[in-house]
């Protein structure tokens, strides 16, 4: 690592991450583009430390894989914010910070003297980002929620699952993902403004609304055509669009898809070249008409023609051939399939992370920045690993830290 490469796009920003599942990935995005991110943890450890999956399925505050992934490149300060002296420590840290990320119930920070107004009193450029299930205001602001509840209230849960069954959640806590990601964009917008004008602000991120952003066109279908989109899993959602079984799993094809339907002729040409029976029935203007391709008889007819072909091939072979014919078809990959991807290997996408055993591999850079590369600085910290170091940086003497430790504050 050269000195140049160590200079990230966000170098010079101090971020205090007080969050858990709703904000730790947001903090990670800042950390790995160069910000100095301090994870401020309660005495029992950050919430994600208690969430499975764990190493070898044994719970332990240094064993959570979700914690290990979402907190790389940060330092950890263990601090009791229920204690008045702990609150003063946080105010002292905030005086030198650009951003605080917090995910407590609305009003709880302010009740401890740690709201945005108090934290920014000596630091008018501070941005405080609050990421909460329903945001800071409105009738549901104090309601309790999990990832599942946010998915439900944001409307995405209704669209997931099978046509003939109950709604089924998106995997791996995507409501929290949405809150983290929109929280990161909002935070950096506010930091941009603060660096330009010198004025920070409080940023109010709603996870429910972040989920709503993922409804695709469902809200507009309701508004413009008065139609409620429903879930379509387990069946084609249009003839030529959906999941199809092959010899070793499934593929997803979007040939009878959106837009000008420009891939349909490619699919027909491919199937003709493969000598698929009845391929001529797939020709004709009607295959570009929404009512036609959404009709049950059309879907059934397409399945009769396409299934014998697709069922005789592997997902890797179908992917390769479809790309040759410029047909949007991809394998339905599991994490193990993805770990074996030649494309991702070529791009050095996966990285090893120390401290979790020799096999531990995780996703690396989500983007490539030519001048200020993404950089994994360190494994996720142990609880309180950097307490002394961080406090020394804000001018606390060893004696003072020792007294705080004795009082159980740090």
């Amino acid at each position: 690592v050269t000195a140049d490469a160590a200079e990230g796009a966000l170098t010079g920003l101090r971020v205090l991450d007080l969050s858990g599942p709703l904000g730790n990935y947001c903090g990670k995005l800042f950390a790995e583009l160069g910000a100095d991110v301090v994870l401020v943890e309660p005495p029992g450890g950050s919430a994600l430390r208690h969430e499975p999956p764990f190493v070898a399925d044994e719970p332990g505050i240094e064993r959570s894989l979700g914690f290990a992934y979402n907190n790389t490149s940060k330092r950890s300060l263990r601090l009791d914010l229920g204690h008045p002296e702990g609150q003063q420590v946080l105010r002292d840290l905030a005086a030198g910070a650009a951003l605080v990320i917090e995910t407590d119930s609305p009003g709880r920070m302010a009740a401890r003297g740690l709201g945005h107004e108090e934290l920014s009193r000596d630091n008018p450029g501070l941005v405080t980002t609050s990421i909460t299930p329903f945001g800071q205001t409105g009738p549901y602001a104090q309601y309790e929620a999990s990832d599942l509840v946010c998915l439900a209230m944001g409307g995405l849960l209704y669209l997931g699952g099978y046509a003939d069954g109950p709604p089924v959640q998106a995997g791996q806590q995507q409501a929290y993902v949405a809150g983290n990601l929109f929280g990161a964009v909002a935070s950096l917008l506010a930091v941009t403004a603060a660096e330009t004008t010198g004025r920070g602000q409080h940023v109010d991120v709603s996870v429910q609304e972040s989920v709503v952003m993922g409804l695709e066109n469902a809200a507009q279908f309701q508004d413009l055509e008065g139609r409620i989109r429903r879930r379509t899993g387990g069946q084609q959602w249009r003839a030529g669009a959906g999941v199809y079984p092959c010899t070793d799993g499934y593929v997803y094809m979007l040939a009878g898809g959106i837009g000008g339907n420009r891939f349909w002729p490619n699919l027909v040409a491919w199937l003709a070249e493969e000598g698929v029976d009845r391929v001529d029935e797939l020709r004709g203007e009607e295959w570009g008409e929404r009512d036609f391709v959404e009709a049950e008889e059309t879907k059934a007819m397409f399945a009769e023609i396409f299934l014998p072909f697709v069922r005789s091939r592997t997902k890797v072979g179908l992917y390769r051939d479809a790309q040759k014919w410029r047909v949007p078809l991809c394998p339905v990959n599991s994490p193990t399939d993805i770990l074996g991807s030649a494309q991702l290997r070529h791009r050095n996408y996966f990285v090893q992370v120390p401290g979790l055993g020799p096999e531990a591999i995780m996703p690396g850079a989500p983007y490539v920045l030519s001048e200020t590369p993404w950089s994994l600085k360190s494994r996720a910290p142990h609880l309180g690993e950097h307490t002394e170091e961080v406090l020394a940086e804000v001018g606390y003497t060893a004696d003072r830290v020792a007294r705080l430790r004795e009082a159980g504050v740090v």
Partner: protein
Amino acid sequence: MEPLPLSGVRVADFTWVGAGSYTTKMLADHGADVIKIESRAKVDGIRLSAPFKDGIKGVNRSGYFADRNTSKRSITINMKTAEGQALARRIVAASDVVANNFTPGTMAGFGLSYEQVREINSTAVYLAMSMSGDSGPERDFLGYGLTIGALVGIHHLSGLPGQEPAGTGTNYPDHIPNPCHAAFAVLAALRHARRTGRGQYLDVAQTEPTIAVLGAAFLDATVNGRDPQPLGNQHLRHAPHGVYPCAGDDRWIAISVTDDAQWAAARQVLGIADEDCVRDWTGEAARHRDRDALDALLVAATADRIAEELFHRLQAAGVPAGVVQNAADVVSGDPHLQARGHWLRLEHPEMGETLYNAPPFVLTGTPATLTRPAPLLGQHTHEICREVLDLDDAEIARLEAEGVLT
């Protein structure tokens, strides 16, 4: 009034379809002047995607397009002409960000590869969002929306175990992981450009951000040696945790109990009697062990209840619960979203007053308003020619007559 965070930033926007357009929308809604450079010959596919105002198809009538292109201006240029490319280069030269989501090589065909752009604008942040990135054996592969969702694992991980994967029901990577990561990278690179005067090249594959939000699954695979499977509606730690039927057609409630107090409260609201609790379900481990039995109890207890009423009663008792809202609920039935002003109605020249999402966050010091509805195809061609390209009316007329401006 405070300037918006990106006021003064100009974006030469060659993106189209899904993730690219959503990325530049976020920049536009927060003050950037986003100039969408469009082709009349090869129209942005989302302009031709349902739903349409009154169900009537038209390049200026798609609600899908409209919601993804707020606050932008549109110019139509024939990029197959040398003069058209020269005009585009002048817009690029006057921009802070240059964005595209074509397959690699397309921009070079316009004379707008990063190397070419850097020569005329060394401070530009150049965002490229191809499917698989600009290097590697699959760099020229094609994909969008849910085919990408399948490729990156989210489809496999969403559904019932042992059944065909169900996915999220949407082109999920387009809406959340890709645009948010791309916008974050652009904002970071803009900071670097402000501080150093140096632009840079951003290669945001439309696969890698979604894989990055599934990080724990990859550690579970490599550390614990198993291939993570979908969970249905279950949780790895807590129970009951699921979706339960309510009275009416396709009405459901989501409930997640995370501790003993919530379990006691949920039982009381749901009327689950002591004798129905055939084992001691104190402690999260006991409840998780018997999660199937708990689900059966809840299904029976919720089936005749009104979802909205039960939601408020459970919340009043401190139990995390929510109505599984459909689009109509979200758009017009949810008083909380109304109170927060999530939905905006903007007057569009062809569609009339239609529905738009406000940003899902409030910057309390620099609140964003969508400055305008989605542009008509080529709506701002003249305006941009005059303001940005400094062309007079005679020159604009000539370029139109010669098919450079379309």
